[in-house]
C-alpha cells in the first residue's frame, strides 16, 4: 500500500485498539506481546525518528564503513530462567536472532594492571577473592546478597503476581538494612580496597548511575540480572532486535509510523484519552501508551488546561538517571589486532578515590565546566565496547562511554559546543590509548554524542538514556498513580527502570493486564 493510501486508511480507522507515542524498545516489546496474545488487535506505533527502537537503534557512516549502536545493547537475563530469555523464547526471538555470548563480564583496566572478569558469578567471586584476599569475607557477603536480595528484586513482577514467593524475613531485612543506602555506602560497609569497590560498582554504567547515585538494594538486582542471569549481544546490533519486533507487530496487522512527531495527546471533556494529533492527521484510540519521558509528555503533549498539579509535583521527585557522553571510533584494522582484545572493558582512573569526590565537587559548583570535565571524563570509569569483536559486519567499531551531566554542556550548534565535543573526543580517546598504545595513529574516524544529542533524538529529560535514577528515594516513581486522564498508560524506562530486560519485563506485565483494563 502506498503512503497516501495508508494515511487515508488510518484516518478512516477511527479506533485503533491502542496507540503508542514513541517506538522505543518498551513500546515495541509491549506491542509485540499484545499482538501475539491478542490476534487481530489493531496497534499503531508513532515515532518521530526515521528508524524504530529509540536508543535501541543504530546509525551508519558509510564513508567510515561503520554502523554505530546508540546504546550498548548488552542484554541481561539471557540464561536459563532469565526473564529476558523467557520472553525471547515466547516471541520466537531466540530463533529469529543470532546471539553472541561474550567470554568476559568485562575487563577492568587500572594503571598498573588489567583484570578480565569471567562471565559467571561464581567465577568472578573466586577470582576477586584470589586477587583481594584481605577482602574475601566481604566479597562472599556481597555475592550472597546478590544471590538472595538481588534475586528477589529480579523477580519482582513474578512476586507481584504470586508466581515467585520470596522469604518475608529476607524482604524485611533488605528493607531495613539495604534499601536506604547507596551503592557507595553499601560497598564502604563491606570493603576497604578502592579498586575492588570500583570493579563492583562499574556495572552501574548499565543503568545510568554512579555509586553515590544508585540505591544499593536495586543495584544488587542489576548485578544479579547482568551476571548471575547471563548476558548476550544481538548480531546486527540493537536495530536488528527493534526491526524484528517491528516486523512481528506489522505482520500481525499493526502499523509503525516513523518520521511522525506526535504533537498532542487528545483528551475529551470527560478527561478520557481519545487519540493523538500529528502533522499527518489525527489517529484515534481510547488507549494511549506513552513511551516518551513523562516530564516531556506533561510539558508538551497535553492540553495545558488539564490540571496536572499533583503529577508535576511528583515528577519533581523523579530525577533522571545520568546521561552519557559517547565517543564512536573506527580503527584502520581489527581492534583485536591493535590490542583491544576484550568485547567490553572498564577503564578506571589512577585517581580512584577522587572520582566520586570530584563529581560531588562539580555538582556543588553548579557543574563548573572544568571541574565537570575532570570529574566525568577523566576520572570516572569509562566503558569501552569493541563492537567488531561482537559483530564484524558493523565495521572496525569501538565505542567509549562515560556517564555525564547535560548541565556543563553548552547549547548545540554553537562554537563552544563544537569545541567541547572535540575535547571530549580527545580526552576519552587518550584514556583508551594510554592503556592500548598500539591504537596511536590507527583511529581513522571519530564522532561524539553528547547529552544534548540524546535529548535531540529521544526528547528524554536531560538526555537520560536510562529513564529515572533508581536511588534510595523512590518517591517520584509512582508519578503515574491516579493519572488524571483515563486510558493513558506509561511504558518506558521511566516506569520500567533502565535496560532492555526491564523494558521487556514491564511490557510483559502490561500486556498481561490488557483484558483486565
Amino acid at each position, binding site marked *: 500500500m502506498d503512503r497516501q493510501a495508508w494515511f487515508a486508511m488510518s484516518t478512516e480507522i477511527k479506533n485503533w485498539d491502542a496507540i503508542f507515542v514513541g517506538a522505543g524498545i518498551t513500546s515495541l516489546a509491549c506491542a509485540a506481546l499484545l499482538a501475539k496474545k491478542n490476534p487481530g488487535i489493531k496497534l499503531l506505533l508513532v515515532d518521530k525518528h526515521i528508524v524504530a527502537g529509540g536508543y535501541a537503534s543504530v546509525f551508519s557512516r558509510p564513508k567510515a564503513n561503520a554502523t554505530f549502536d546508540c546504546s550498548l545493547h548488552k542484554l541481561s537475563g539471557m540464561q536459563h530462567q532469565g526473564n529476558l530469555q523467557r520472553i525471547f523464547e515466547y516471541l520466537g526471538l531466540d530463533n529469529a536472532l543470532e546471539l553472541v555470548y561474550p567470554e568476559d563480564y568485562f575487563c577492568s583496566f587500572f594503571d598498573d594492571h588489567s583484570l578480565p572478569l569471567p562471565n559467571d558469578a561464581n567465577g568472578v567471586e573466586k577470582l576477586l577473592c584470589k586477587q583481594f584476599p584481605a577482602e574475601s569475607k566481604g566479597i562472599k557477603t556481597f555475592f550472597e546478597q546478590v544471590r538472595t536480595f538481588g534475586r528477589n528484586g529480579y523477580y519482582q513482577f513474578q*512476586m*507481584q503476581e504470586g508466581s515467585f514467593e*520470596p522469604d*518475608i524475613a529476607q524482604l524485611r531485612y533488605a528493607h531495613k538494612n539495604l534499601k536506604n543506602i547507596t551503592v557507595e555506602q553499601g560497598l564502604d560497609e563491606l570493603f576497604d580496597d578502592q579498586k575492588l569497590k570500583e570493579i563492583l560498582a562499574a556495572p552501574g554504567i548499565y543503568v545510568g548511575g554512579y555509586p553515590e547515585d544508585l540505591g544499593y538494594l536495586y543495584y544488587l538486582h542489576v548485578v544479579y540480572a547482568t551476571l548471575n542471569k547471563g548476558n548476550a549481544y544481538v548480531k546486527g546490533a540493537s536495530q536488528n532486535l527493534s526491526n524484528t519486533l517491528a516486523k512481528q507487530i506489522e505482520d500481525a496487522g499493526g502499523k509503525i509510523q516513523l518520521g511522525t512527531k506526535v504533537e498532542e495527546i487528545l483528551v475529551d471533556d470527560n478527561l478520557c484519552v481519545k487519540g493523538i494529533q500529528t502533522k499527518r492527521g489525527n489517529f484515534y484510540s481510547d488507549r494511549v501508551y506513552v513511551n516518551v519521558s513523562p516530564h516531556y509528555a506533561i510539558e508538551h503533549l497535553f492540553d495545558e488546561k488539564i490540571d496536572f498539579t499533583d503529577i508535576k509535583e511528583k515528577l519533581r521527585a523523579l530525577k533522571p538517571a545520568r546521561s552519557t557522553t559517547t565517543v564512536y571510533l573506527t580503527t584502520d584494522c581489527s581492534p583485536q589486532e591493535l590490542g583491544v582484545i576484550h568485547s567490553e572493558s572498564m577503564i578506571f582512573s589512577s585517581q580512584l578515590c577522587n572520582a566520586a569526590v570530584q563529581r560531588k565537587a562539580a555538582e556543588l559548583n553548579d557543574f563548573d565546566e572544568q571541574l565537570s570535565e575532570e570529574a566525568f571524563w577523566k576520572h570516572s570509569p569509562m566503558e569501552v565496547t569493541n563492537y567488531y569483536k561482537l559483530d564484524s559486519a558493523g565495521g572496525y567499531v569501538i565505542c567509549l562511554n562515560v556517564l555525564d551531566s547535560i548541565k556543563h554542556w553548552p547549547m548545540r550548534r554553537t562554537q563552544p559546543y563544537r569545541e567541547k565535543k572535540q575535547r571530549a573526543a580527545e580526552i576519552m580517546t587518550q584514556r583508551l590509548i594510554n592503556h592500548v598504545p598500539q591504537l596511536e595513529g590507527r583511529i581513522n574516524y571519530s564522532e561524539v554524542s553528547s547529552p544534548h544529542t540524546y535529548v535531540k533524538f529521544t526528547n528524554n529529560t536531560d538526555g537520560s538514556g536510562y529513564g529515572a535514577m533508581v536511588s534510595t528515594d*523512590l518517591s517520584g516513581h509512582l508519578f*503515574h*498513580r491516579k493519572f488524571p486522564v483515563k486510558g493513558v498508560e506509561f511504558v518506558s524506562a521511566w516506569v520500567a527502570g533502565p535496560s532492555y530486560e526491564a523494558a521487556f519485563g514491564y511490557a510483559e506485565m502490561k500486556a498481561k493486564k490488557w483484558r*483486565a483494563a
Partner: protein
Amino acid sequence: MNYENIFEASVEIICDLKDFDEDEVKGDMTFEQLDLDSMDFIELQVVFRKKFGVNMESEVFADGKVSTIDEMCHYVLELRQAA
C-alpha cells in the same frame, strides 16, 4: 476474618515498613501521607498474599481506586469474600 483483623494486620505492616508508631496510623490516611513507594507496595502485596491468601491487583493502587488504609482493608475483605 473480619475488617478489624485486616486493619490490625495492615497497621502492623505499615508501621514496620515506615517506622510509624501504631497510634499514629489512622484508617483514613492516604498512601501519599504514608509515603509508600513502589517497593513498599510490592511488599504489601506479598505480605497480604501470605497472610490472607489474596492477590491484590497493582491496578487498584495505580488508578487510585484504593487510596487509603480503610479502602485497602475493604478491598482485601472483598477479595476474601469472593474467594
